């Protein structure tokens, strides 16, 4: 399937792309556009004005995708807190990782293409997921 989002990806879009690849569509093709009007007809837009898979109320796009695709995995919801705080920063959640992740993504967007940012952030989100999966099972931070 094709998916479209705004060019110049930052935390929410990078995390959504990871989420889509891991849990929605194993072989996604991502398109980056500057204007919502240039989304290809066969692509599903996300994290763009006017798209369903975007911010709604207090939710960021990552949270919206979790809801729309009924992904109830508590580890994904833990990551959602980090993405939410890195993106919106409204202190709804206590996610101290958010600030670091935000800075890393901002820095990457300065030196890489959008495609490359998705390549690099894939393993970062995989690692975050694994860390929080173990933390949840152990009931404390893994070593």
């Amino acid at each position, binding site marked *: 399937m094709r998916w479209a989002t705004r060019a110049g990806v930052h935390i929410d879009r990078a995390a959504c792309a990871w989420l889509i690849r891991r849990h929605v569509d194993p072989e996604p093709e991502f398109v980056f556009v500057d204007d919502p009007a240039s989304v290809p007809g066969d692509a599903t837009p996300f994290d763009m004005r*006017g798209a369903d898979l975007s911010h709604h*109320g207090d939710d960021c796009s990552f949270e919206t995708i979790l809801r729309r695709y009924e992904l109830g995995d508590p580890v994904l919801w833990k990551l959602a807190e980090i993405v939410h705080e890195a993106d919106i920063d409204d202190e709804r959640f206590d996610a101290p990782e958010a600030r670091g992740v935000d800075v890393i993504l901002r820095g990457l967007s300065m030196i890489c293409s959008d495609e490359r940012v998705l390549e690099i952030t894939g393993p970062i989100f995989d690692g975050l997921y694994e860390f929080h999966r173990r933390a949840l099972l152990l009931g404390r931070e893994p070593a």
Partner: protein
Amino acid sequence: MLLAYRIPRQPSTPRISIWRKLDRLGVARLGDGLVALPADARTREQIDWIAEEIGEMGGSSTVWLAAAGSAAQEKDIAAEMRQARAAEYRAVLQQAETAAGARPGERSRTLKRLQAELRRIGRRDYFPPAEREAAQRAVRALAEDSPSEVAR
């Protein structure tokens, strides 16, 4: 960048939630339902989401990339925003000075709160006033007097 918006009077909860979000961004309020912010990638995105949310709650809005009619008007708006931040920095400075004389536990709690508050103000500080430096210095001084694990 300007956001011109209208939100239904009732219910009031969504109105207030939008008001708070705009406050957090540090907008200059130019009139009833008209706010301004310097345009950069982050502020444009934030304003776009707020505009979208206003639409979802039954209101309407337009986002403008606008230029003031004269440099003086633009300066006045920037000065107003700078003063708003200056007042926030002064509040931090005052609390930091008060906390310097408090007991250690109380002092480190205040320190954490003020560090968070400085970060929050910093994010909406587009035209840094002189007060910023003083507030940062006062909070740093508080950190240096506190046990290291709290100051981290």
